[in-house]
């Protein structure tokens, strides 16, 4: 093999790599927060006694979970554009990501809520708590605590799939990489570097979620057990 | 007569905790030994050391001529000579009773299927379960499962059988059927090391009884030892037990 690796050619592009990584993180944080809120609402909707609402939420979750993110992204970005609404790529990307991750969130959170012991509901009911109070204290908070590992795992996967938005020219990390490799012709090296940066982001997110979990769920920390 | 199982000053620790603190014991061929003692006294650990489910820190264990303490021991050869039955049966749930028994003879001893099947039938007859050959473990009662586990060990024709509280998980009415099988085995001349809480069995069947206390062999004797304990510890143990 005659190939000579040349990572040096990439050195001058480091500010762009950083920008790309930052955009990836921003998009991730934005979609995590929005996805959690929307997904939780969908989960509640899915458990609703209202058949229509429940079916609708179910259909949404199934649709998202059984189609590729790339198709969802194209559908939203190119679809809206063809209808005359040209969104900035980053906006379209975040919308698609929220649309996508909320469905997974809903499924995970619903499983957590379904695991609420019956006795607790009856106890709360007999204490005269209102429905929103019951929902928040008895069902939702413990559910989120229960599914926290699954949920954060999903958000890390979502961070990785931000790379897909490069396909509508979002200049996040992978998009940046595409630009750089076409300038430097150091394609392989570029993607090795980018792979390393993604790994770093994955580790940062894992550590962040772990710390956040400790801060949020003091009870679990004290007991040292999963619920 | 030489001992088939011999422990000499065996020490075993889990991390910082020393569980066996110099255990010595010799079992002659054809002897049935009952090992009794409080929970946590190290009975199971001693038994597990005998067939190398645990490795020891110091001392010697010889079983049927295998130096069990030797790190270079061929564990498989040892296991060919030593059968063990656990409290939790540990039958293979995906195999029928017959397949459970045939697995090791076919896989390890390379017996032909027909030979192994005959062996299984023989072993099942010995534990009184000939008609259950085609059942799956979950279709059997606890006592029946435990008898299958014994048959599975017997089919390998071991020289020594180890039993670790094999009736502890069973309802009282199922305990008897398992103990009877073990009694038959003892009468048939099988060398047995039996950890048990069944004092009746120890008294009636065992040639000798070993009382373990705090990781040591505290007292050894025949059935009469339970009626007149020599040490205050055994006396206290018996008082509690009754």
């Amino acid at each position: 093999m005659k190939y000579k690796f040349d990572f040096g050619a990439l050195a001058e592009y480091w500010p762009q790599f950083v920008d790309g990584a930052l955009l990836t993180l921003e998009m991730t944080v934005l979609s995590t927060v929005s996805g959690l809120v929307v997904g939780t609402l969908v989960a509640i909707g899915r458990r609703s006694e209202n058949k229509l609402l429940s079916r609708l939420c179910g259909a949404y979750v199934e649709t998202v979970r059984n189609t590729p993110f790339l198709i969802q992204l194209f559908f939203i970005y190119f679809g809206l554009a063809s209808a005359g609404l040209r969104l900035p790529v980053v906006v379209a990307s975040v919308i698609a990501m929220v649309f996508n991750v909320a469905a997974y969130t809903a499924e995970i959170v619903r499983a957590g809520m379904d695991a609420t012991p019956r006795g607790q509901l009856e106890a709360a009911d007999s204490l005269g708590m209102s429905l929103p109070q019951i929902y928040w204290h008895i069902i939702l908070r413990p559910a989120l605590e229960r599914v926290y590992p699954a949920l954060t795992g999903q958000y890390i996967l979502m961070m990785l799939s931000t790379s897909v938005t490069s396909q509508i020219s979002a200049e996040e990390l992978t998009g940046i990489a595409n630009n750089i490799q076409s300038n430097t012709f150091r394609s392989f090296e570029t993607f090795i570097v980018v792979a390393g940066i993604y790994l770093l982001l994955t580790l940062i997110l894992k550590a962040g979620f772990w710390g956040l979990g400790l801060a949020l769920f003091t009870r679990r920390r004290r007991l040292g057990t999963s619920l | 007569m030489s001992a088939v199982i011999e422990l000499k000053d065996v020490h075993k620790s889990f991390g910082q905790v020393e569980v066996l603190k110099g255990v010595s014991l010799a079992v002659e061929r054809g002897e049935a030994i009952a090992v009794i003692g409080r929970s946590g006294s190290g009975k199971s650990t001693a038994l597990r050391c005998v067939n190398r489910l645990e490795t020891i820190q110091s001392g010697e264990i010889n079983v049927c001529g295998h130096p069990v303490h030797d790190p270079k021991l061929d564990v498989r050869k040892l296991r060919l000579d030593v059968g063990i039955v656990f409290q939790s049966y540990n039958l293979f749930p995906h195999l029928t009773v017959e397949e459970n028994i045939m697995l090791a003879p076919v896989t390890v001893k390379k017996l032909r299927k027909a030979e192994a099947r005959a062996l299984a039938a023989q072993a099942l007859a010995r534990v009184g379960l000939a008609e259950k050959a085609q059942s799956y473990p979950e279709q059997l009662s606890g006592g029946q499962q435990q008898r299958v586990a014994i048959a599975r060990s017997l089919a390998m024709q071991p020289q020594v059988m180890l039993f670790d509280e094999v009736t502890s998980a069973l309802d009282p009415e199922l305990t008897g059927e398992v103990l009877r099988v073990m009694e038959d085995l003892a009468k048939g001349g099988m060398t047995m090391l039996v950890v048990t809480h069944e004092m009746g069995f120890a008294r009636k069947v065992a040639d000798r009884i070993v009382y373990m206390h705090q990781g040591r062999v505290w007292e050894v004797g025949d059935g009469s030892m339970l009626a007149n304990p020599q040490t205050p510890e055994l006396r206290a143990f018996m008082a509690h037990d009754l």
Partner: protein
Amino acid sequence: MLAQPFTLAHVGYMLNGVLWTLALSALAFVFGGIAGFGVMLLRISRFRAVRIASLVVVQIVQGIPLLVILFAVYFGLGIFGFQVAPIIAAGVAMMIYSAAFLAEIWRGCVEAVPRTQFEAAECLALTRWEALRKVILPQAFRLAIPPTVGFMVQVVKSTSLASVVGFVELTRAAQIINNSTFQSFLVFGIAGAFYFAICWPLSAWSRTLERKLHVGRH
């Protein structure tokens, strides 16, 4: 630029893409499964160093986007001097990705089989490999079917990324049609429906299997 009308011929073109999507999925699943099985064996090796090394490799693969793996493979194979066919690059990348995930799924299943089963097998003088083959894997297999079928959905969806190296599977076919018809909602809607038609039955099947397994184990 003049938009072409969307016709049945376009649907036919997409159907052709569906075939390639299925082919790539099968390729990724079969080879990923074979490699994944090997990696799973490493993950449960009795040697600590092997376990750790394979864990690190799996974590690395799972910490990089499939798209980046795909580019790295595509360009990486390219530097050996020969132009790689997109299906090869996509197949290799998908194999790496599937292997990492399947290995972890299956390791979980193997470890869900009680340790005492392994002990019982060893006490009957079975070797480690015999115990694994005759006792542990058959039990793990039952546990593994539902999540493995579930992962097939993941594989099918991921093949859409192969479009970026110019492999004309369903997503790429849809993109090409979109570029000439500009009927984006319709085109990507239909493509999505095709994916749904492949994936949803798998998801439903996986759920059914999962339920049956739980009933079977009380």
